[in-house]
Structures are given as C-alpha cells and as structure tokens.
C-alpha cells in the first residue's frame, strides 16, 4: 500500500449509487479523496481545470476516473472519447462503471480506449467486493509513473 494520497473522480448521476460507491471505497480505505460530479459536462469541466471546480483551492488531478455511461447532458461515452483524445488527460485510467451490460456499450467503450468496463452488480456483497478489488487493483497494485 502506497503512502501517496489517492484521488478518484466519480462521475455518477444517481446520488444513491454515488453514495454506495463512496461508502464502499471509504470502508476499505482505498481512496484518500473522492470527487463526485453528476453529469458528463461537469466531469469534463472538472478535468479541464475550469468552471465551478477550478475555483476550489485544491484542484487535484484524479488517479482514476469511475465513469457511468448514462449521464445527463453529455453521456459517458462522449466524456470518455474526449478524455482519451486529450493529450493531458488520456493517461488517466478510466473505468466504466455502469448498469448497462449492452454489448454495444461495451464495444464502444473499448473502442474509445476505456481501461476497464465493469457492470454494477445488483447484489450488495458483489458490489462491495468489486469496489474493494477495484480499489486495490488500480490504486495500490497498479504501478504508475506519478
């Protein structure tokens, strides 16, 4: 376990789901900080260091982005596409965390260079385990240059 502070950007329009994710990740002490935005547009604004989040005293580049696909305004795939085509952002791992298990969504996500695609399990324990493993994998075990 690294001693570095780990930052996750959670893009999730459903506040209940966001809360579930946050709780599980916190319970396992995987992430130091979780930033949550509710739509695609807000996510892109955050990532481009402007808008409402830019004024915050402490802008932190996320180490991992958890991205829902079905989002108001700009949907997840579009957000993914823009991140992966932005030289400054494309190195951030993006994990698609969605309730959709449609093949089309999966195929599109990988085409837009998603680093991982995970469907939200309906069962609570599965969700908890998944998020724990996810945290460990990306934030503790996965080696990164920064």
């Amino acid at each position: 376990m690294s001693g570095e502070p780990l930052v996750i950007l959670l893009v999730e329009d459903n506040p209940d789901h966001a809360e579930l994710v946050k709780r599980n990740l916190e319970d396992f002490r995987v992430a130091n900080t979780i930033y949550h935005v509710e739509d695609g547009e807000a996510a892109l604004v955050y990532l481009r260091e402007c808008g409402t989040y830019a004024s915050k005293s402490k802008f932190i580049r996320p180490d991992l982005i958890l991205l829902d696909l079905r989002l108001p305004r700009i949907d997840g795939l579009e957000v993914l596409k823009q991140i992966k085509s932005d030289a400054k952002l494309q190195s951030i791992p993006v994990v698609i965390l969605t309730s959709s298990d449609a093949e089309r969504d999966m195929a599109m996500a990988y085409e837009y260079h998603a680093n991982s695609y995970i469907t939200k399990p309906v069962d609570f324990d599965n969700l908890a385990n998944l998020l724990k493993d996810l945290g460990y994998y990306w934030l503790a075990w996965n080696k990164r240059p920064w």
Partner: protein
Amino acid sequence: MGYLNKINSVNAVRRIVAAILISIVVNELVTTMLLRSFPGHSGVVETLLDGLLLFLSSFPIIFIFVYRPLKHFVKVVEEEKEKITLSESDLRQSDQMLKIVLENFPGVVFWKDRELKYGGANQGFAGMFGHSRASDIAGKTDYDLMSDVQAADKFRAVDSEVMNSGIPKLNVLEQVKAVGGRVIWFDTNKIPLRDEEGNVIGVLGVSLDVTERLKEEEKLRETSQYLDKLFRNANAPIITWDPSLLITRFNDAFEELSGYQYGEVIGKNLDILFPDKHKEVSIDIIKKTGSGNNLKTVEIMIQRKDGELRSVIWNTANVLADDGVTIAATIAQGQDITDQKDAEEALREQNDLLVLLLKYSPVNIFIKEVSTKENRVLNVSDNFHELTGIPSAQMIGKTMHELFPSDFADMIVVDDWTIFTNGNVLNIEETLNGRIYNTIKFPFILGDKKIIGGFSIDITERKKAVTQIEETVKKLELSKEELRQKNTELEQFTYTVSHDLKSPLITIKGYSGGLLRDLSNGRHDRFESDLKRIAVAADKMTSLLENLLELSRIGRIVNPPTKFSMGELTHDVISLLSGPITKCNANIVVQEGLPDIYADRTRMHEVIQNLVENALKFTGERPEPTIEIGLRKNGVSNQIFFIRDNGKGIDPRYHETVFGLFNKLDASTEGTGIGLALVRRIIEVHGGRIWVESEGINRGTTFCFTLQTNEQNGKEQ
C-alpha cells in the same frame, strides 16, 4: 368533206350537161357538122356521139370548168335551134355553129385520116403548136407539128393502133411538149372513125389538159397519206366502222390495245373486240350511235386477242354521208383505263379497310383538316361518340368548337396548328369531361388539305391504377420507414429500460445490503436515510414502469380524432395546473383565437400539460416567470403552435437529446425524463413535428409543434 361535196356536185352537173349535149349539141349540130366533114359517111355521126359522151363522162373534174361556157353555148344553140331547119340551105350556118363549138371547147380536138394526116383540129389544138388558125392544121402530120420525132412516133403508133384495131382507146395519158417548151398532160380518147360500111377511115382524138388535175390528184394523195399516217400513228386507239358495224379502219394504238393486227379485223364485225359474255350488250350500246347519238366516255370492255380483258372508255363521232343525214361511218376513240380501274379498286379496298378500322377501333381515331383558326373533322372512328356524345357520322365536317367545350377546342386548334407548322408528332395527355386521354397527333398533307391525324386512348383507369400502385408503394415505403424507426425506437427503448429499471434495483439492493452489514456491525446512524433511499428508489421504479406502459400505449391505442378548440383545451390544462402555477407565481398568456383542430383530445391534453409543466419546472427560479401559448401561422395549412417560457433555456447541443427517453438535462430535477419523449410520440402520431428553439442559457425556451389539423388527415389516423 367539202372537197367530196364539190366532186359530188360536179358529178351532178356532169350528168345534166351530158344530157344537154346529147340532146342538143350532138343530135343536131354535131351531127350536121360531122356529116359535112365526112360527106357520105353518116355512121360517123353515131360514132362521134358515142366518143364524146364517153369522153365527157370520164372527166368529172373538168366539167366544172367547162360548165359555164357550155351553158352559154347551149343557150346560143337553143336560140340557133329555132332558126335551124332541116333544110340543107342552112348548112352554112351549121358549119359556123360547129366552128363555135370547137373554138369554145376547152379541150383539144383533132382528127386524122388513115394516112395519119390531120383532117382538122380545133383552135386549142392549133394554138398548142403555134398556129393561129385551126385550118392551118389540115393536111399536116405530127412530124410537121412537133420537133420531137420520138413523141410524134408515139402518137402516130397509138392512132394507127386504134385505126387498125377499130377499137377506141380511152383515157390515154399523153404528154405533149407545147410551143415554148411547156409540158402538157392530156387525157386522150382516141376513137376510130368509120364510113357507112364500117370501114375505118380515120381517127378522132379528143384530149383534155389534165396537168392541173394531176397536180390536184397528187396533192390529194399526199393529204390522204398524211391523214392516214396521222390516223395510224395517233397515240389514242382509233377505230372506224361502217353502218353495218364492219370495221373499216384500225390504227396502231388500237392494235396495241386489242392485240389484233390490222389485217385480222378489217372487214370483220365489231363484236370481234368484245368478250363473249358482253357481246350483245356492248353491240347494243354501239348500235345506239346508229340513231345519231355519239358515245361520250362510255365504258365498254374489250377482250384482247390473248383473252385479257381491258376496260375501255369510248368516244364516238358519226361521219355523215353527202346528204348530211345518213351515217356513212362511225369513228371511235378508245381509252384503256384498266390500270386506272385497278388502282381505283385497290384504293377502294384500302378505303374499305379504313372504314372497318374506324368502325371497330378500340382507340379513338380522328382525321381533321386544320387551319390557323379552326379545324374540321374529316373522319372519326365510331367510338368517338363516347367523347362527344354525338354519333360519329354526324361529327364529320364539324368544327372543334361545335364538338368540344370552348377552352378545350381552343387548345386543340392551337396544338394542331403548332404540330402542322413544326411537323412534329405530338404525344400528350388531355383531360376531357373528367377522363384522361393519351393522344398522339401527326401532321400530313392530303392534296391541298392540311391534315392532322391522331389517336386517343382513354387512360383514366390505367392512370388510376398507376396512382394507386404508386400510393401503395409510397405507403409501403412509409410503413417500411416507420417499421425501421420503430425498430430503432424499440432497441433504444430496450436499452433504456434495461439501464433505467436496473438503476433503482441497484440502489435498493445496495442499501439493503449496507443496512444488513451496518446492523451486524452495530452501526445505526445511517438506518433512516438508507431506508428512505430504498423507498424512493422503489417509487422511482414504480413511476418508471407506469411511464413505460403509458408510452407503449401511445401509438397502439389511439382515440378517434374529434374536432375541438385548441384555446379551450389550453384553458383546461391551465386550470388543472393552477396549483403549481400559483406556486411558481407564473404569468400564463394564452393567445386569443386559437383554432379548432382535429385530433385525439386526451393526448393533446397530455401534450399541452407536459409542455406547460416542463416550462414551469425551468422558470421557477426567474423573478417573473412567464409562459406564452400561441399560434405562429406559417401559411394556411402550416400552423405552428408554440409554448414559450423565459426560463433557463437549453444549450443548442441538447435540442435533440431532450426528447430522448429518460433523458434528463439536470439530474437533480424531478421526473423520470419521459415527458418530452411522450410529447414527441403524440405529436408524431398526429402527423406533426416538434422541436425546440432556444437562444441559449437563460434566454428562455420555445417548444414548437405542428399538427395535421384537417379532417381528412385526422381520419386517417
């Protein structure tokens, strides 16, 4: 003819004069004179008489020239006759009379004795040889009179022959060279003179100068030959026959026409030319010419020698005899019209075909004579009465304006003249009395007539069928498109449903699992909020399911369209929403005079309600929220209804996505995001279109939609 008549009258005169000469001159004077000249030879008188008579009757033409002097002479003789008695004492007077006769006789008279010495001659004879007095001739021989010995021998030989044989030689053509070299042709009769015993004692020569006559005869022969040539070589077949219908002449052209040679038909009955079947009838017709009529272009068929039948047009003329009444001959000219008749026959056959065509044609056929201003029907097919209501036969000669409505006739006349002048075939569709015709017209010239011919086919049914097929195809295309759209919609729907319905489930399961874990860990602080989350998610699930059912109903269940006022409907919605409106303190403006529309009223109510609720939702934060509902008229059939708010507006990027199923621009707002999807569905089911107009954030939003408001479209739903 004139010439012939002349001959005939001369002949008549000839007889009279001969009679006079016989009765008067010869009987009395000449006898006396001759008796004196040949004393003791009384038989000579009779011989002379015969000779003269014979002589005179053989010179018809000459008598015209001698008639007058003779007449005069006869008169003198008659006067003298009174004075003459049979007394010998008057002989002297008679001698004088003979002299007068001889002197005035237009011919030449001479007589020789057996020794061929001239006993005497008349003045004419003497003058011919340069002697002034007749008496100078007596005692001379031919050698004395003419230098040409051979000629003299010839004369003498004949004279001797007559005397030796005792037989007169009549009409001997002799040539005499007169004084001065003039050549005279004589027609001479030489008669032996006898004494009482019958012994030849001399010869009498009576000659007439026929030089002129020969010339005339030559001329006549030439003329005759010329006429004959003309007749034979004439292009037209010419034939003549006599009153007994025997063929007398037949020219080359007639040979060609009939195939008979001249020699084969001359003298034959005319009926040789006619086919057996028609012989009697044809001859009967020909015989009519015998009663003085001429055939004028009468058709009588002839049968050629080779058996072929030819149609011939005959023209005849009668040649009358001297009396001007009797028919001497008939001349006829024939014209072979067989080829013409064959052509006529062919033409008639074609015409018969045309008549049949016009009678039974299923296509309307017309032939018109055209001009710049008006056209006339020359012929039409029998079925044309279906177009005009007038029997086809009665249409012939009628003008376009007599047959058709004025504007239609005007169009035809202009069309026809255009085709005629540019020479093109016209292929058009015309509408007459609600029927559609495909008409093909073409120009041509017939003699001096400008003609337009054409065909019209009633294609009304065909067009109807084509239109129906086209409509069916269009409908099929539409339903295909609709199907494709529905498919896409369904796919989207399934996807949306699987995602959006799963979402509350995740919440419910997630928090209930969390509650269980908290329970086992003895942690109770989140119980209440988590249970609330579970309840809300369940509610959300319920409303999603209800919305989905609602959406699926639209398009499947449609209430019959009714006519209602859009204004009334709008006011109903506003009173229904009076609660929220008051809560937002919103100002609602409804345009006056919104039209009546034809639609499913319940559904339209949902549309207006949704749009107004939507507007309220996004104007709540404005200081003076205002919602306007009205009609933007864009032409008669294109009515655009609008609902405008002065709320937060919509970024142009989301103008399309706002209508997506469960799409929400703001996750924090109420509702499932089905409202606009529902509205669009209803509008589209009504054949309309819906869209958003907004200049951007905080600039307000206008939802516009159109409807097919006319009754017919409403019914089709």
